[in-house]
């Protein structure tokens, strides 16, 4: 069987699972700077599924595609430490303010630059929490999709057999390639970094990161071209500008309220009617209930 070309879509996200008090600014907006940026957890599960195919099907390559700011090149390095062959960072102000539709449009345009048999995403990103990007990328590329994948069980070069974990059960489906697969958190965890790859790739940089690099880096890149990570701006993909960023996003955020802020100071009530009524009113107002 011929090796597969696999592209993993991965997103750098703020670690919303460890939100402390300083995660919210006084005006109630999210203070992204106070949250560590991590590899979206389910995208690591996706990467593992890709690496397993690489382990079993000779000649298979795994590349990561990520859209984000310059520092998101970290995601590509992290994937290479675990066995990915390389990656692409799609980064441009033109993509700012994208909702899921504009995000998936930009990603699908970038994917048209690449060859692929399989596109593997995480099910859901922990910041936007929508789980919409995978299916929308599939639709934009007119590919079939398999969501909630727990295990890519088999691949004969033309057809993949995939076990899906649904809310109330499991399903095994077959799907012709190329296709888009979104991987569930219940799938196998990602393998750890490989020390050899860490040594090899730790100096790899994206274009924006390289702006601050010193001469040693450029000397090194001359010898080892793989230390230069590919970065694409809006000019490197074919797209309709009106479908990108804010203008390409049908959904608009009308307003945002923070929930943690008022929450973590405990209020002590003795159970009088007035106190309980006030509490219930608060819970309804901040949409915790109702």
């Amino acid at each position, binding site marked *: 069987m011929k090796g597969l070309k696999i592209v993993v879509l991965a997103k750098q996200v703020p670690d919303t699972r460890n939100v402390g008090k300083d995660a919210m600014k006084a005006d109630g907006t999210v203070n992204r700077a106070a949250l560590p940026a991590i590899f979206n957890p389910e995208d690591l599960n996706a990467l593992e599924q890709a690496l397993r195919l690489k382990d079993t099907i000779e000649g298979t390559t795994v590349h990561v595609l990520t859209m984000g700011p310059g520092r998101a090149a970290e995601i590509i390095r992290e994937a290479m430490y675990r066995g990915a062959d390389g990656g692409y960072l799609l980064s441009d102000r033109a993509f700012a303010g994208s909702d899921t539709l504009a995000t998936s449009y930009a990603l699908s345009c970038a994917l048209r630059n690449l060859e692929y048999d399989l596109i593997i995403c995480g099910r859901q990103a922990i910041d936007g929490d929508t789980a*919409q990007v995978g*299916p929308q990328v599939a*639709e934009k590329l007119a590919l079939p999709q398999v969501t909630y994948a727990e295990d890519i069980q088999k691949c004969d070069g033309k057809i993949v057999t995939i076990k899906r974990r649904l809310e109330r059960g499991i399903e*095994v489906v077959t799907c012709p390639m190329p296709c888009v697969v979104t991987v569930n958190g219940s799938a196998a965890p990602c393998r750890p970094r490989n020390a050899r790859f860490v040594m090899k790739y730790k100096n790899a940089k994206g274009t924006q990161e390289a702006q601050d690099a010193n001469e040693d880096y450029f000397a090194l890149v001359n010898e080892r071209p793989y230390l230069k990570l590919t970065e694409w701006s809006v000019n490197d993909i074919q797209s309709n500008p009106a479908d990108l960023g804010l203008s390409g996003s049908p959904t608009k955020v009308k307003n945002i309220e923070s929930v943690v802020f008022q929450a973590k100071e405990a209020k002590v009530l003795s*159970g009088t009617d007035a106190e309980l009524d006030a509490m219930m009113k608060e819970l309804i107002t901040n949409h915790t209930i109702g």
Partner: protein
Amino acid sequence: MNSVFVYCEIEEGTVADVSLELLTKGRALATKLGVKLEAIVLGEGLKDVEKQVFPYGVDVLWVGDDARLAPYTTLPHTKMLVRLFDAEKPQVALMGATSVGRDLGPRVSSALHSGLTADCTSLEIGEYTDAKSGKKYENLLYQIRPAFGGNIVATIVNPECRPQMATVREGVMKKEIFNLQHQGEVKKLNVDEYLDDTDLVVKVIERHMEKSKVNIKAAPIIVAGGYGVGSKENFNLLYELAAVLGGEVGASRAAVDAGFCEHERQIGQTGTTVRPKLYIACGISGQIQHTAGMEESSMVIAINTDANAPINKFADYVITGDLNVVIPKMIQYYKKNSK
């Protein structure tokens, strides 16, 4: 005028609870907007399915009954919905935030180039002024949803594109009969006109579904009871609170061991780990084996007669009092004041 549409999920001939909840919400929205409520059911063997949905106030039911539509697969359902929405141009389209709805919704929204808001906890009608253009929009759907791991609540609107699409989880909206006598119109879809072989490339070769059972893991609100609840009968109070709030009942091990509640509902180290939006601990002392299973809840209310119960350290609201007094008051307030 353009209708409100609800995509109804069906499993073994029964319309899913989440869909009935959305019909209830959809009915209220349609009435407010002065338009029809329409529903669509796709599957196989759907005889008499209208009897299940008309009592919820459906004016028009679209039925696609064909072997190719069951079990659910993405492409055939997407194609039917995209074509129907293209023709009927609904202003609002709702579906469950389930493994079906979250597979289907984004695909449909992408094909129609319409916005989709995931996992809404509240849907309202309101106006919106675009900050840049100053353009004013009336009667938009406010799609209110938590994001950022539940740390923020965003109100999202969809000013220009139609339909305004949203998904909602099971148990978030209330299910309520609109009128047992309500009669709508059934419109049959000719499935052959929609589907061809290219829609059937994904094949389900194995399928094991469990009947819907308690799923405390997915519940946005959990009312948990401990040994302090005192008896199986007293647990009914917790079920009542959970029902009005749209949540599930959980329990400590001491309550399960005492036979107040079934083991499926046990939370903690040797039970389930849960991360609901709201956890109401009633008569639970808060031993570490219990709190290990609930400490990641976004908000905790502790109701305990002991002002120094360890559970209070995890709580956002500490209510020092008898649960038999406090819970009925909460139910009463909520019934009176919720929309």
